[in-house]
């Protein structure tokens, strides 16, 4: 296990450096002068241009620029936003809890519904439940989630008036962020109705964000379960007189989980991609919306730093998934 851990950590380093290079290279190597693009249609004077070139350090050799950037990254310095003049690093961590809260709820929904759906479909293979569940899963998998979000808003916010359209909580409530997680903060604030308001704001975005991972998890669980259900040890479990829920839910699912865990890990990347759309539509003040806004505003330090941080998050999650994989699969654990 320890050797597995170390070898896994070692592959982390070159990937990390590579991500640094890519996010650094984007604004410097690709066609288009970022400063001109930033200025937009108004244009800017030669002095101002020169000033900005120096501020960015674009006049120095690329390798020196990269070294500065890279050493900065290692010290937690990702530069300063053009727009807010605040360090990118601080902005990221101020907004990250919002995305984390949303993604966490989404992945919980996806797992809590997707696993049983896959198991039920596999156990009832070829019957009505299987067809119904797998057809729905394919629809979910094909869903343009930005449209799905609008549709849900039309139905639940427009026609039924059950859920708010945007934001994390009603403007009625105000309290300083303690943890950054609205669900926890609203409880801590002790204000009446704050928590329910936070939950109501969270419901639609979570459902939207959960849709595709849910479909992917359900499909993968079903095919993994079908494979496992044909194994000899399932017959053994049944011959012991175990009830079907225990056979399917414990003996089969535990083995089927091994490929499913991988898929859950991959869905975290999907979640962050989905968060861009979901957060934009629901005005959810998280990383996705922050990145999109910065791209609109040509706030290049934020784009560069944000890209790096998001990639880093995905890599950390993949690392965690690999380690979980080791925990759940005894063949790796006991080596």
């Amino acid at each position, binding site marked *: 296990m320890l050797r597995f851990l170390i070898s896994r950590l070692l592959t982390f380093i*070159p*990937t990390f450096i*590579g*991500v640094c290079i*890519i996010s650094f290279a*984007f*604004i410097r190597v*690709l*066609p*288009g002068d*970022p400063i001109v*693009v930033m200025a937009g249609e108004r244009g800017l004077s030669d002095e101002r241009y020169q000033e900005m070139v120096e501020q960015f350090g674009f006049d120095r050799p690329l390798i020196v620029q990269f070294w500065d950037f890279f050493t900065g990254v290692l010290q937690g310095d990702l530069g300063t936003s053009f727009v807010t003049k605040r360090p990118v690093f601080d902005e990221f961590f101020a907004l990250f809890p919002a995305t984390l809260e949303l993604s966490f709820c989404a992945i919980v929904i996806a797992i809590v519904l997707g696993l049983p759906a896959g198991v039920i479909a596999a156990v009832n293979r070829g019957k009505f439940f299987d067809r119904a569940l797998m*057809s729905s899963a*394919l*629809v979910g*998998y*094909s*869903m*343009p989630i*930005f*449209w*799905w979000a*609008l*549709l849900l*808003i*039309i139905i639940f*916010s*427009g026609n039924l008036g059950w859920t708010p359209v945007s934001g994390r909580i009603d403007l009625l409530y105000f309290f300083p962020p303690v943890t950054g997680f609205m669900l926890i903060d609203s409880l801590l604030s002790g204000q009446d109705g704050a928590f329910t308001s936070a939950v109501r704001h969270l419901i639609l975005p979570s459902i939207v964000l959960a849709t595709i991972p849910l479909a992917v998890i359900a*499909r993968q669980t*079903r*095919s993994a379960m*079908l*494979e496992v259900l044909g194994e000899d040890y399932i017959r053994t479990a049944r011959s012991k007189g175990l009830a079907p829920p225990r056979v399917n839910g414990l003996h089969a699912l535990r083995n089927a989980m091994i490929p499913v865990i991988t898929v859950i890990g991959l869905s975290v*990347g*999907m979640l*962050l*991609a*989905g968060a*861009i*759309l979901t957060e*934009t539509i629901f005005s959810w003040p998280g990383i996705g919306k922050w*990145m*999109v806004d910065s*791209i*609109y505003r*040509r706030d290049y330090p934020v*784009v560069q730093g944000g*890209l790096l941080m*998001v*990639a880093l998050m*995905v*890599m950390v999650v*993949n690392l965690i998934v690999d380690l979980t994989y080791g925990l759940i699969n005894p063949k790796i654990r006991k080596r």
Partner: protein
Amino acid sequence: MADVSSSTNTTPTDAATARPGRFKEFWRYFKENRGAVIGFYVFVFFLIVAIFAPLLAPFDPSSQNRAATLVPPFWQSGGNWTYPLGTDPLGRDMLSRLIHGARYSFLVGTVVVILAATGGILTGLVAGFAPKWLDTIIMRIMDIILSIPSLLLALVLVAILGPSLLNAMIAIAIVLQPHYVRLTRAAVMTELSKDYVVSAKVAGARLPRLMFVTVLPNCLAPIIVQAALSFSNAILDVAALGFLGMGAQPPTPEWGTMLAEAREFILRAWWVVTFPGLAILVTVLAINLMGDGLRDALDPKLKRS
């Protein structure tokens, strides 16, 4: 392994007429899957609509009728048969815009798949045949690209290249390409250890011949399935970019862009939002149904799922 060469060996009756026999066998498997056949018909329907869009559309997709803005579809009160699916805020006919939008979706799907598959297959072949150090470098680069959420990477690329449909397609192709690299490399690795490759080497086949004539045809099955999947992914992602204002620019009747334009009217005029999205969903669903059918038909080993 269910590679193409061995499947012809197991059916000696087909060996004489290998090509049609193999296709017939494929079609037989494909037909078994009812969903796939339905998906195929829907796909063909959309394809015909896309090809004959100017003939089918009752109006020019960008002609505005200021007298008839936000007309509801014909079955709602206030709707009429002139605009069967209603009009948008600028008085343009929804049906005509949707019909023309099909062209963009197919264009996007085709171009992206061709770009991504060509680049990905070539890189994957190189990685599979290359010495270990080069292979490691290529695969590390692919890992890096994959560690950035695809839509975010595409957004950043488009932001730098400038928002347009072409740049959106290039960005999505770059983002989808690592999947082809991984797939091709894995397939090449399995094929390389087989006897027929060794015998080709012994017979003196040069490297290009070995790569493209001997090995590549036997790796095609998973790549074709991936092509179907990335066709639908490309449509979804380019629509998403359009929705974020980073893809096709208005007044292009691209479905994602149409949604973006209609966003502020969602609570007043449901149809301007519902139809473009529904068109995306149905197209993508049809392609995914076909993709599932293709996978089952081309790779009997995966038939279980």
